[in-house]
């Protein structure tokens, strides 16, 4: 039972990282129909930004604002930095390629991803870095008799709050309706008076920014970060997005959480080495059973 609980909380934590990255992925994907392969690398960049802020000041931030304050500031820093990077990326790498079609966009996104990865390597080096123990909160306590760390609880709280907030913005506000309308049909949305440029700006700022926060939390949780960790997270986020159903916000969250849970329970009970094989296998089975993902709508093509 203790193992189960441990794997459960671990799976939820990893799953919430996946979910946050997948949310951004899904927003960009839903509106732009763009598989943003560089999304995972922005997540990694977020991790590095938070890391730099915390160690560059030789823990000045942590000393003055405390462990939690330092973490909050690092997350805000990564949030704004990556939001800016996302908008820049759209301007430089994607906007000029839109007329060329989706396949060219995929190549441009792959180019961006390679560029970011090697950029991170050029700045921070090829060797993995580690968040110093001094900046990571590590209080342990017991919840209903089961051991958890305060970091896990805070990560889960922040993640779920963010997910709820995004869900609220997209599903319940007028601006969210504009996003959904743009995702469904861009030209009709423009005709209805929606400023599509604002929508695009917003999703390219907010989507990656969420990944930035997840990057800092991921750094705090695992401590070790490396320049090429974005690939794995990008791939997992893409998997989660598809698993939940393309462009579907609750789908991306559920997909991410499910992915994290499956991974960690399989690793805990069956085999760590085969966990990713298991995840991809489940993905394929789900798609055979439901060709548009778990929450994806069944759309009959109009002929």
């Amino acid at each position, binding site marked *: 039972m203790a193992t189960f609980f441990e794997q459960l909380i671990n799976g939820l934590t990893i799953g919430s990282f996946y979910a946050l990255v997948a949310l951004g992925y899904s927003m960009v*994907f839903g509106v732009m129909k763009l*598989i943003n*392969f560089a999304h995972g690398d922005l997540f990694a960049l977020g991790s590095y930004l938070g890391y730099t802020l915390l160690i560059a000041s030789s823990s000045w931030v942590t000393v003055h604002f405390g462990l939690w304050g330092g973490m909050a500031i690092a997350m805000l820093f990564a949030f704004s930095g990556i939001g800016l990077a996302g908008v820049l990326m759209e301007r*430089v*790498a994607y906007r*000029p*390629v839109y*007329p*060329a*079609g989706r*396949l*060219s*966009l*995929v*190549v*441009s996104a*792959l*180019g*961006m*991803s*390679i*560029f*970011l*990865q*090697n*950029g991170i*390597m*050029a700045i921070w080096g*090829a060797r993995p870095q580690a968040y110093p123990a001094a900046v990571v909160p590590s209080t342990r306590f017991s919840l209903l008799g089961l051991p958890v760390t305060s970091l896990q609880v805070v990560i889960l709280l922040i993640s779920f709050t963010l997910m709820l907030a995004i869900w609220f913005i997209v599903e319940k506000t007028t601006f969210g309706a504009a996003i959904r309308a743009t995702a469904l049909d861009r030209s009709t949305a423009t005709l209805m008076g929606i400023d599509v440029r604002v929508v695009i700006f917003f999703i390219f700022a907010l989507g990656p920014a969420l990944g930035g926060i997840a990057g800092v939390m991921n750094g705090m949780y695992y401590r070790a970060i490396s320049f090429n960790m974005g*690939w794995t997270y990008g*791939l997992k986020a*893409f*998997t989660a997005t*598809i698993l939940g159903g*393309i462009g579907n916000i609750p789908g991306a969250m559920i997909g991410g959480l499910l992915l994290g849970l499956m991974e960690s329970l399989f690793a805990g009970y069956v085999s760590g*080495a*085969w966990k*990713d*094989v298991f995840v*991809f*296998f489940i*993905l*394929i089975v789900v*798609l*055979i059973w439901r*060709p*548009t*993902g778990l929450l994806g709508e069944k759309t*009959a*093509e109009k*002929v």
Partner: protein
Amino acid sequence: MGITDNILKRIGLGKPSGDQPVTFWSKNRGWLLLAITGAVFAAYPFLPFISDYWIDVAFFVGVYALLGLSLNIVLGEVGLFDLGHTAFYAIGAYVTAILNTTLHIPIIVLLPLSALIAAGFAYLVTSPVIHLKGDYLCIVTIGIGEIVRLTMINNPFNLTGGPNGINGIGGPNLFGLAINSSTQFYFYTWIIIGVIVFGLIRLQHSRIGRAWNYIREDATAAEASGVDVRSYKLLAFVLGAAIAGMAGNIYASKQMSISPGSFTFIESSLLFCIVLLGGLGSIPGSILGAVVVVVFPEVFRQFASYRLLFFGLALMLMMIFRPGGMWPRKREGTGLDGLGIRGLPRNDEDLILLGKPDPAILKPATTAVVRGVRLPPVTVPMDEEMLLQTHGVTLKFGGLTAVNNFDLNVRTGKITSLIGPNGAGKTTLFNMITGIYKPTSGQIDFLGRDITGLKPHTIISYGIARTFQNIRLFPSLTCIENIMSGPHCHARSGTWAAVMHTVAEVREERDIVATAAYRLDEVGLWSYRNELAKNLPYGKQRYLEIARALATAPHLLILDEPSSGLNDKESEDLMVLLQSLVKEGFTLLLIEHDMQVVMGISDWVAVMDMGQKIAEGLPKDVYNNQRVIEAYLGKEDD
């Protein structure tokens, strides 16, 4: 392409254009280009400034060219997002490594064997998922790639050697000649590529290559024109995997050791870039793409860790400034020669006469064989007068009944019209007849056969062709290529026949292009034969679609709102054309809103409202029917 053409023209090898005299050079252009290319390849390793290092680079260009060519079939020709292509490459390499190190099977025997096993693997893993659309298929291919790589790392049954891989793989031995030096590997690889390129060019210019392109352009229209979409997609994966498997064999035998690190996701994405950099569906493009992807990092070697940074930038810049790729496949402006079909008459016009159909093929058949297509035996009582009958056809979408218990009778040799307000379910009924939807209940009989629930490409081969309400052409193909999809479903030549240009294949291809030429001329679009379909004005696109349907030599032609978007003059021309088609022996069924057209040419009119038949009869009777007027204009208040 423009630059290449100019250079060729300057050195006297340009394409012969009308006003230039035919010289020895222009006549043997193809052979000369081949000879020059061959000479350059043969001389390369012996050039004084080429070291063994650069011969090895050329070898790796070859491996990536093979991989690029193999992915080009799936991604370039058929348009399937395959981001896990490395899986097939890995299978080829591991099959070679395992069988060579344990059972000591010679590498040269393993070359075809690894191709075969990779192809079999591709068939097994892609057939359950081949129906998935775009991005869903993309993630599945990524998943397959990752599953293969992780399996190799996890060393099942101690076969794959885990993360360290397998060492001590032998080299190929050609009838006593051991291949081991860099130069030998260079020639070995590029000769194999030469053979494969030959086959791929032949395939590209055959009904198989065209079917792949039809699917890429519009899969629904391809299926409705008689292409078995599922099988052709699978064929692309299987052939692509076979070539990638060969590349794996060559790579393993040169490196003598392999490990999972060579088969990562980034490798698959590089292959994706190769195809896009070269140009979708372009064979020389894929080879050029491989040159860029392999040579670029080598040239920038002195910048060490920055070289991939530049590479990423270069990819983005390429897509911004040359989105179509470096050497895109050119389709328009090549004339009918560009189709690559042998034995065409020197004068294009003669082709039209060659394609005049045999009147016999339009008579409804009572036998089991129609135009070489073996139909199942007649199962339902056949009424010579009724070509098509639907009996109580119903289709429900969830709680909504789109078509309810509908009986439709289409008389042989007549024009039947189906009218009704928007949303009445007319197009849905057409979609059931042509096999796009499967009815919830009811039966559809055609020529005495029950065709309910058959696949669209089967139904069209029985003799029912259609056009779409919103025109669906193959936009980036030429007009003649568009129409050549029509006869596709009656042709039989397979992959091998296409590569070998068998006598039957060449004859079949000539018949296909002749049929297309005749139909193109019939609708008055002959002069547009080499234009891309997307460049035609709207009205002409409608005619092109009708010609494509006619080219399938159907008994029944179904037209969904043929006059929509046409002006009065164009509508009148259309009526003349439709009536001439009836004289030619076709039976017509149309959905139409233009009452002038309906009343002018129909022999029989059925009226549909809310999925049900509310009236049918001669045009003038229907025109005055009280229920029909109510359905269109609403009921008068009492």
